[in-house]
């Protein structure tokens, strides 16, 4: 078909929301400079270190993990049987796994809502104030530097029912706080710690996004009589929608995959598996209970979640520019 031919209308079908849809040319995925160098060997030499490292430390482990998900191995590593999908179906039958999944979803939703909500509020306030912006930002960014595990140790101390100052305050208010006994308290503690640690991430992206909204648009709205809050919800928020969506995906990734350290440092999945989310369960089943088949099967399911999120993310990156005002 020549380039000038009029293309037929594509058939209507269910598709991604507009800002997630793939662009006509996936330029950003196959991008190459139109001016470059010739040569077949040099590029491969340049790529060699990266490829060797990926092969040794990423692909081989990933493939072994995949294979392991279909094998049943006794804890002493003596006998191995091929069991097909048995590990995965056993997982899907176990009430424990569903409970852990439910817990992870609740935990992730709560953390996302808290970090994003507070982050948006703080970013709005930072964008609004004229003085002290740098100082506020510097302080609010501090938790990014702190390791999740260390944040976990500190929060475990603060809310320790015997010596913790925060727990003492709760007790003084008449709240029977004890994360070592009550599953709800433990879950709340983990959610608070994870949100405190991750808030700065959402915050800094939202501050940058708000700063990039053109002043002219906001001034035009102000001239038309829109008050600050109305402008924020009707103009600014839709304009930063790509950042919002990006952060929601990143928060999901964070809640699902990057909270192992916080759980291990505060509650160790307990009490009675009340905070035993998926990434923690993989670790416990694989390294404590030595059930390698089940742990590998859990890894495979986690990988599937992670890859689906990556696909969404990629589509997002491609569509990102389309919200620029210049277009």
């Amino acid at each position: 078909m020549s380039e000038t031919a009029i293309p037929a209308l594509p058939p209507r079908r269910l598709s991604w929301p507009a800002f997630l849809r793939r662009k006509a040319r996936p330029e950003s995925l196959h991008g190459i400079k139109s001016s470059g160098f010739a040569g077949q060997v040099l590029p491969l030499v340049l790529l060699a270190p990266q490829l060797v490292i990926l092969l040794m430390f990423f692909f081989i482990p990933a493939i072994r993990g995949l294979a392991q998900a279909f094998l049943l191995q006794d804890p002493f590593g003596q006998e191995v049987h091929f069991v097909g999908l048995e590990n995965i179906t056993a997982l899907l039958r176990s009430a424990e796994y569903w409970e852990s999944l439910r817990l992870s979803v609740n935990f992730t939703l709560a953390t996302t809502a808290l970090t994003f909500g507070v982050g948006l509020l703080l970013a709005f306030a930072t964008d609004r104030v004229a003085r002290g912006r740098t100082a506020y930002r510097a302080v609010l960014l501090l938790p990014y530097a702190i390791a999740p595990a260390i944040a976990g140790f500190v929060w475990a101390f603060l809310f320790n029912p015997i010596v913790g100052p925060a727990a003492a305050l709760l007790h003084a208010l008449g709240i029977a706080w004890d994360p070592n006994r009550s599953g709800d308290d433990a879950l709340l503690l983990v959610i608070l710690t994870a949100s405190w640690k991750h808030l700065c991430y959402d915050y800094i992206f939202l501050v940058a996004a708000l700063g990039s909204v053109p002043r002219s648009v906001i001034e035009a709205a102000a001239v038309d009589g829109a008050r600050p809050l109305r402008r924020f919800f009707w103009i600014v928020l839709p304009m930063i929608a790509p950042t919002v969506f990006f952060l929601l995906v990143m928060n999901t990734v964070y809640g699902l995959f990057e909270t192992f350290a916080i759980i291990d440092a505060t509650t160790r999945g307990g009490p009675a598996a009340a905070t035993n989310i998926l990434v923690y369960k993989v670790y416990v089943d694989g390294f404590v209970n030595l059930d390698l088949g089940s742990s590998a099967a859990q890894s495979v399911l986690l990988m599937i979640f992670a890859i689906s999120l990556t696909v969404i993310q990629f589509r997002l990156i491609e569509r990102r520019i389309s919200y620029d005002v210049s277009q």
Partner: protein
Amino acid sequence: MIERASWLDAACHAILVVAALLTCLPLYYALVAGSLTTAEVQQVPLPFLPGGAFVENARAVWTRIGLGRLLLNSVIVALGIAVGKLAISLLSAFAITYFRFRFRGTVFWLIFLSLMLPVEVRIVPTFEAMTDVLMPLRLLVQLSGVDSLVQAMTGWRLEVSANWSLLNSYSGLIFPLMASATATFLFRQFFLTIPDELCDAARIDGASPMRFFWTILLPMSRPNLAALGIIFFLFGWNQYLWPLLFTTEPTMTTVVVGIKQLVPHGDSIPAWNLTMNAALLAMLPPIVVVLLLQRWFVKGLIESGK
């Protein structure tokens, strides 16, 4: 400022001050607890002001878990991850954006498959692969039939029995965390924004690809290198799961993991003052990095999200 709305500005300041206090409060209490003696830290409620035992606690921590060695390990691992990741990523991003070569598509997808599969998700297989690095080689020798061929020809039995484990080594801590394509992806995005004319001009002047890389591309990438270097340094310093699993000798672990030994649980004396003291010492280097290099750090964070 578009209009005056003093009540809103005041509310904004109030919100930010409260948030800043809530951010600092846990750190302040860590400082208070870290400077009390073991008996003082048991008081309910905890004192509001720091005590005088900070140096004493720090000395106790230093000898008890060998903090000096752990800090050194953390510096080596964090720098190793940051420098290694930047170096291999810069080269591979250069190769896939500036060269048209066979297998380019394949290589591209091989690299980007590794995007966003955090080590948490593949710990068990990675652990096994790292304790037995040569397993694929043995398998290859067996499958390819090289060993039986050699045996038939020479009568010798060839056996790859080498057992190479990276357990308790710096390479074992560094390499698996380097194996992800995030940095390659970011450099590639950056190279795509560099004007084509620069490369054309370099070629007309007869520059070789590597000369173009050293004298033009590398200096231009310096801000990005600094920004991403900070992000990966923090990433490496703050790792927990991998060092926890992959070091069985207490002297080879990192400082973040080492603190775990000091966390009171069960019937031990709840010496939270030592735990908090060690926590403060371990968070100090990354906090200094973030505060001093704030501008680069924010840039790196935003870029790494694109």
